[in-house]
């Protein structure tokens, strides 16, 4: 016997960004509670709009499941007194379990008899559990931000204004902050009315009649279809960014897409500015032509039906006109600003109390960038561009446009720098030095941009590490992880002949020169190695199996490009060949295992006796030189192939040679041979880490 359950929390408008997670949370909590309460049920549906969080459970049992459980009591020895009657302990157990001692049985456990009782609980009526259960779920809901309202001692994401709680057609009696649960919901704020929900199954349809589309997917599909229809009709491309669609979806109960227009003369402003202004301030979708060029239109979604769309479009156009006029004003004003005046203003902007102003930061970026450029042997022209780009990479931070739209940092700098006559490399580097802006973003495409980007990020990381700001757990307020990962990504993208330690040393020296550091360079350096190790590992793990990552990291990650090449090569070998490569690795591992017993790695050729050990020695010496060359040239597949050539000799060596010879010198020499071979292997990877 079952009935449907409906629980709707009616709220004042909940922040759009919280809603999807809140809907899921409500569903999860209800499902968990039903399970704990032994209430069987059918499908569970969750819905959310700005004004409601809802869960609907199909076919919820009207009674809890009955259960039988066995409870263990005291041992026979304790349970019976000398006369064979129940002891106090046994009677106490009976009382505690609410059973008669008559029901006791004995069962053996590990050679001892214990009392057992079988208790059966008969399931109670679901309706007697619901009020308390739902109230607990309500008060256990968590949100990124909670609030209080009125004179109630209650916290929730926004004030609770109504509750619908129905089990079948029965109202579940409950109350919170003077709101009594009932069967009356509220329709669309303007198009609907209050309405009775006669039973849970009719909820979705009843609200649809009240102009509320409660199903999130359905609402999303409606918006997408309407946008597509408009795009088709007008031959537009409407740029729908997923996160904006998600926000808009949770700002409306009935979506109606409409468009408006703006004065084409605004198109003289860079389109990033217009798009950002439309998106961030107004939640509009921008409209593009086939070539991706912005058109003077915008698309927005109204919370309501198609009544008076012209009035609404006109209102939105008015607002956008004011916004874009502001943007144009900022854009024109900013261009009156000389770069050198902007730079002097950077001296008054604090980057971090202990790390000085942005001006201080820029001076450090300049020095780091110059030295990285030197280490990379860049050309004369590039040297000049790096210095200039480093000096002016942050000038746009004091422009009005970036003050208004911080996410346009770099974008405006590039545009303004080009207009001010800076060379193309420099202008581009200003934009690129913020790249990669996210895990999915590209690294800077130019070498100048790459150098400035690494210098800026390295300066922040070393600066923070020097004052003890080191990310732990979820704590990473300066996004240092992302920045370190960015550096790793840049090194890989440009295949830079630069090691992490070179980069650390350059940045640490610059910091030591330009500020008072509280921690020593070696302390910071140690932390940096550990920190970057994890970042390299993360980047590697994107393409390579974890055991392969472990194996190659073990052989060092200072040269990031090399470790990535080794990882890829090893992964390919593991994937492609099968038994063959596995036996190769097994032979390597036999070498490693015995090498551990060696005292040193100095092989004496004279002491080599058996044919097989001589053969191994010769084969090893033959590949050694080309192997090291391949490694230093980061030709990992070639290096691995050279090592693999030794497989036969190694196998024969172990078949024919008794390593643990009685003669001390011969034994030591054989171990030394394995040890020196092992040293070479370990420069590629610790093959023991591979899992088959």
């Amino acid at each position: 016997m079952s009935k449907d359950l409906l629980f709707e929390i009616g709220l004042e408008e909940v922040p759009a960004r919280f809603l999807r997670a809140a809907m899921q949370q409500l569903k999860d909590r209800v499902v968990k509670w039903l399970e704990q309460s032994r209430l069987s049920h059918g499908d569970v549906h969750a819905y959310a709009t700005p004004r409601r969080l809802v869960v609907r459970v199909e076919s919820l049992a009207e009674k809890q499941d009955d259960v039988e459980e066995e409870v263990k009591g005291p041992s026979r020895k304790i349970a019976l007194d000398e006369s064979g009657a129940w002891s106090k302990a046994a009677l106490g157990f009976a009382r505690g379990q609410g059973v008669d001692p008559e029901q006791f049985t004995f069962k053996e456990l590990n050679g001892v008899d214990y009392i057992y009782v079988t208790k059966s609980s008969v399931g109670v009526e679901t309706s007697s559990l619901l009020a308390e259960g739902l109230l607990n779920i309500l008060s256990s809901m968590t949100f990124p931000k909670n609030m209080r309202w009125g004179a109630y001692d209650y916290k929730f994401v926004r004030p609770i204004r109504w509750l619908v709680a129905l089990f079948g057609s029965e109202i579940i009696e409950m109350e919170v902050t003077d709101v009594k649960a009932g069967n009356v919901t509220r329709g669309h704020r303007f198009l609907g009315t209050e309405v009775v929900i006669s039973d849970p199954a009719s909820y979705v349809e009843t609200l649809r009649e009240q102009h509320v589309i409660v199903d999130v997917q359905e609402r999303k599909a409606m918006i997408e279809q309407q946008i597509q229809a408009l795009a088709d009709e007008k031959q537009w491309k409407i740029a729908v960014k997923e996160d904006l669609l998600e926000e808009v979806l949770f700002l409306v109960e009935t979506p109606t897409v409409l468009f408006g227009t703006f004065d084409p003369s605004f198109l003289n402003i860079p389109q990033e500015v217009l798009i950002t202004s439309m998106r961030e301030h107004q939640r509009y979708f921008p409209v593009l032509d086939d070539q991706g060029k912005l058109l003077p239109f915008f698309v927005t979604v109204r919370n309501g039906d198609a009544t008076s769309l012209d009035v609404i479009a006109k209102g939105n156009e008015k607002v956008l006109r004011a916004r874009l006029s502001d943007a144009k004003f900022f854009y024109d004003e900013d261009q009156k600003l000389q770069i050198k005046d902007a730079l002097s203003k950077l001296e008054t902007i604090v980057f971090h109390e202990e790390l000085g102003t942005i001006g201080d930061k820029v001076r450090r970026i300049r020095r780091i960038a110059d030295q990285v450029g030197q280490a990379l042997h860049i050309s004369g022209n590039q040297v000049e561009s790096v210095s200039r780009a480093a000096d002016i990479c942050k000038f746009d931070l004091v422009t009005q446009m970036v003050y208004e739209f911080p996410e346009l940092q770099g974008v405006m700098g590039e545009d303004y720098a080009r207009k001010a006559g800076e060379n193309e490399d420099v202008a581009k580097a200003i934009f690129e030095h913020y790249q990669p802006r996210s895990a999915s973003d590209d690294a800077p495409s130019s070498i100048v941009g790459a150098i400035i980007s690494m210098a800026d990020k390295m300066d922040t990381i070393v600066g923070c590490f020097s004052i003890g700001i080191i990310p732990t757990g979820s704590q990473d307020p300066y996004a240092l992880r992302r920045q370190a990962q960015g550096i790793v990504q840049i090194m890989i993208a440009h295949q830079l002949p630069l090691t992490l330690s070179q980069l650390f040393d350059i940045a640490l020296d610059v910091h030591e020169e330009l500020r008072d550091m509280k921690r020593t360079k070696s302390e910071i350096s140690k932390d940096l190695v550990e920190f970057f190790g994890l970042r390299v590992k993360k980047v590697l793990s994107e393409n390579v199996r974890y055991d392969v990552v472990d194996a190659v990291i073990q052989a060092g990650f200072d040269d990031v490009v090399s470790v990535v090449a080794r990882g890829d090569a090893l992964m390919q070998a593991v994937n492609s060949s099968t038994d063959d490569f596995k036996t190769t690795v097994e032979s390597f591992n036999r070498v490693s295992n015995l090498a551990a017993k060696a005292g040193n790695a100095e092989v004496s050729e004279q002491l080599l006796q058996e044919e097989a050990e001589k053969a191994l020695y010769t084969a090893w010496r033959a590949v050694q030189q080309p192997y090291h060359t391949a490694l230093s040239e980061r030709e990992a597949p070639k290096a691995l192939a050279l090592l693999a050539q030794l497989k036969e000799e190694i196998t024969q060596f172990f078949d024919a040679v008794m390593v643990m010879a009685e003669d001390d010198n011969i034994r030591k020499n054989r171990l030394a041979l394995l040890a020196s071979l092992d040293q070479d292997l370990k420069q590629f990877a610790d093959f023991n880490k591979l899992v088959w």
Partner: protein
Amino acid sequence: MNFQKMILTLQQFWADQNCIIVNPYDTEKGAGTMNPMTFLRSLGPEPWKVAYVEPSRRPSDGRYGENPNRLYQHHQFQVIIKPSPDNIQELYLDSLKALGVDALHHDIRFVEDNWENPSLGCAGLGWEVWLDGMEITQFTYFQQVGGIETNPVAVEITYGMERLASYIQEKENVFDLEWVNGIAYGDVFHQPEVEHSKYTFEVSDVKMLFTLFNMYEQEANKAMEQHLVFPAYDYVLKCSHTFNLLDARGAISVTERTGYITRVRNLARQVAATYLEEREKLGFPLCKKGDVEHV
């Protein structure tokens, strides 16, 4: 509907909701929230319902009367109700209807906006209300005022009168708004806008303003020592306005900025705490009156 009629309509509407209607406070301030009718009265257990127009000064927004949207001084219509009523959103929407805004022909939305005023130690949760994409109202449940948790919670509704009027009157330029028939907004406020902008950005005596800031701060402290909450708070407001003038003049560096804000905040916190003490000594007199129906 002209500007004056809008003010009268809102006053009548909220008076009908049992708010007392008071007049603007006579000390310069950046927002209606800083009026002691809001800042102090939203603290403590006493019920409170008030509505008033507040001319609010934002020196750095001065544009010499040349920008169609930005003003040195604009008008807020402020409503405070404590504890916040359960039907406050409906009341607010009714007030828009009284102004002639029919929700069926517009797009009205409550978009998350969490309000903070760090210099007064205030924080609240709520929305900006959008009318066809334009922010016309700030709607906030105060959670903290002067660094003190509010209990019960007051709700604050702040209408941006110029914006609302420019929408209702369909005007592009704020100076073209009709104050009353035959008198435009510009007739009343253009000259002060030009002069205040010029004074703020070109003329004000920075040295004197720094001196004044320190003097006002000292005087606030002196009044506080005597537990004279309202006089002390007036000087906090003066500090705040003086700071805004200095800031608009570009006289305060980013580093110093935090220091000045902290000084104002500390004063505001002390005043808030002392106000509560003084009300408690009086036995929170408004609690006894309960919710009286005004006639």
